[in-house]
């Protein structure tokens, strides 16, 4: 029972709120991309590139904030590349996404050796300091949970909510959803589906990269090889579980983050369970979630479709 107390303590939840940042941001991004009809398996690679760019940016400028900016820039570039291949060149979304992931892994590992001569991890870089929000931090429980976090955490909350608003309450959101349901119909209504897809995919890449920057600047303050560790795939599962809705995606991501937090705490304790099983938890959870969620889910009708304005 002691274990349960430790597992479900406030500390674990607070840790989960920190761990959720890359997953939730990528999940929101995934929601936009898929609502516009483009499957984005490449989120994993985009998180990784974001983490790397942030570390490089912070390393060379000395400022963590410039590092975050660098991550955003990398996200834009990668998003445009992926859009080009999937939208203009009509590459299979899943294959192109897998290509992006392998490319990202190779690119970051290669460039890391070119810049720092090391293969496992980069040297330390300036990270993002936590902010303590007065008044909020003093409220019992709520204060502990939300009162003192890296600015990216607060930014994440803002993005989740504005993402939901954008998607369901604005004209742009309606057009994005229309494009993913019936691109031909959107075309006949005069909606510029190429722009919509480019926008949505690039947004997903930027958000994933932003989430990645948290890994190298907020969570730790260095970049280590392949540090995304499957979070991009968890984000995909979270998005499906959350029914392609930013709010739902966030909730589902919290599930993964919580499991991750629990896994870390268990590792710190001397239990009889082998560490491998503890490490497996988030991955097993992903499979369970997917198997359960997909039966009742209703993805955008034209997801994966390559319809282009016929010219």
């Amino acid at each position, binding site marked *: 029972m002691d274990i349960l107390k430790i597992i479900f303590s406030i500390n674990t939840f607070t840790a989960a709120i920190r761990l959720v940042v890359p997953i939730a941001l990528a999940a929101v991004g995934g929601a936009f991309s898929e609502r516009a009809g483009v499957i984005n398996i490449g989120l994993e690679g985009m998180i990784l590139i974001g983490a790397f760019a942030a570390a490089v940016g912070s390393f060379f400028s000395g400022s963590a904030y410039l590092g975050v900016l660098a991550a955003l820039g990398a996200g834009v570039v990668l998003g445009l590349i992926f859009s080009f291949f999937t939208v203009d060149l009509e590459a299979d979304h899943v294959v192109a996404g897998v290509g992006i992931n392998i490319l990202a892994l190779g690119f970051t590992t290669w460039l890391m050796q070119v810049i720092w001569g090391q293969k496992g991890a980069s040297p330390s870089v300036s990270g993002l300091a936590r902010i303590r929000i007065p008044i909020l931090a003093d409220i019992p429980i709520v204060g502990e949970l939300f009162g003192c976090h890296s600015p990216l955490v607060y930014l994440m909350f803002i993005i989740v909510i504005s993402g939901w608003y954008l998607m369901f*309450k*604005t*004209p742009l959101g*309606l*057009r994005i*959803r*229309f494009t993913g*349901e*019936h691109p*031909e*119909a*959107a*075309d*006949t*209504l*005069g*909606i*510029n589906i190429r722009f919509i897809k480019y926008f949505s995919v690039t947004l997903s890449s930027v958000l994933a990269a932003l989430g990645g920057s948290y890994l190298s600047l907020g969570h730790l303050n260095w970049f280590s090889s392949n540090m995304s560790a499957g979070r991009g795939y968890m984000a995909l599962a979270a998005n499906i579980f959350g029914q392609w809705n930013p709010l739902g995606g966030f909730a589902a991501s919290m599930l993964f983050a919580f499991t991750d937090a629990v896994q870390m705490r268990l590792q710190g304790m001397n239990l009889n369970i082998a560490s491998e099983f503890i490490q497996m938890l988030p991955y097993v959870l992903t499979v369970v979630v997917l198997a359960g969620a997909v039966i009742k889910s*209703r993805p955008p*009708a034209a997801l994966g479709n390559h319809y282009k*304005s*016929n*010219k």
Partner: protein
Amino acid sequence: MFAVEMKNISKSFGSVKANDQIDFAVKKGEIHCLLGENGAGKSTLMKILFGLYSKDQGQIRINDKTVKISNPAAAIDKKMGMIHQHFMLVDRFSITENIIAGQEITGALGIKIDNKAAEKKVKEISGNFGFDLNPKALIENISVGEQQRVEILKALYRNAEILILDEPTAVLTPQETEELFKIMRSLTADNKTIIFITHKLKETMEIADRITILRDGKKIDTVNKDETTPQKLANLMVGRNVLLDVEKKEKKSTGEIFRLEKVNYKNPLSGLKLKNINISFKKGEIVGLAGVEGNGQLELEETIAGFRSVDSGKLYFDSQDITELSTRKRRDMGLAHIPSDRNKRGLVGNFSLAKNILLGSEWNQQFKNRFAINFNYLNDYTEKILNEYDIRYSKKNSTASELSGGNQQKLIIGRELSRASDFVLAAQPTRGVDIGAIEFIHKQLIKMREEDNAIFLISAELDELLNLSDRLLVIYEGAIVAQGKVEEFNEEKLGLLMAGHSEEEV
């Protein structure tokens, strides 16, 4: 004055010339029918007008001004609206969302969509023209006729003065078609211009003011309705004298070969129920099924084929109970199936013609050399069918997707009718096929009948049903509402039965 003038329009897709120097002019306030067979180029021409396709050459004038229409937004800007053959609607969105997307009404700051204002506007426009729709209803919950009205509303919401309707009556009953015609007349009374794409002669004669006939991508002629007849139009469409009816001899049907007994089935997705279906099929007999699409024909087709299992009731094939039998075994027993959706079910686009001929028979010893597929035999067999059915292809190892729609259909029909079969399930066998091929396919079906096969003909074309069937059934909301010898029916009676009127009323 001309609302629309298209001069010298040409458009090619690869080596196919879809539009060949076409001149087309529509007067303001008229209903102008664009008539031609499938593949004549009508849709292409109108998609160029609406900005969905780009033209290779030619000029377009709207209201006497030369214009450039590079995308649908530009067409909408010029007050044009297009109602497509396959509806451009999102099932899970509301009527309002489908209408306003792309031209949303926003609140004060311009950020949020003002749903209330939008719904009000939708109700207002529909009231003006006599529609009655609930703006909040979801598309997946309204009828096909209502969906079409939503499509028209989309155009009117954007202040369309010129409306292009692409084969709108394909999915309507004769009665719903009359309602559509009423709406069209009230629109032209308001001085709106209507271009009506069709291949149906009777409708053209009823609704058109003027008619332009296209054939093989070229414009043949433009005539006034008063100066022409259906026979004249048919000849212009095809370029020779057309046999509008097929010859059918008297035949005595022999024993029963297939039977559905007290079949009940509920479609879990749509909720449509097949109710207490009892049909008997005899050798040497063509049984036709009339009905508006969506009344259970697909479910019936798929139950007979074995894709779906019945909830209760039995199916018998050659006196054997096949209710639980798989599709493969039914085919082995002698079921031939011409599917209603040829692209989805009947062909594999990326497979060669020969591999498509093998579809459904890939485990038959006839095509095998013990363990392996005998491609030599298959290729010869395929060649025979290609010749017999006059299927046009560009090279020996073409894929099925490289054939035209009509040739694809002939490939499927050639494949199915060449099998050793006793029962032919023919669903929409001439959909999307030009008149020449239709003639041929009808002859083949009659031939099957001569050879003592039983044929179940499911079709949306009343002429075809009245022409070919020995007996006729009508389906409405999943139930067989009428059965009888073909002589007991005519188009008007069928139309009423298809719309749900009971036999006594009719």
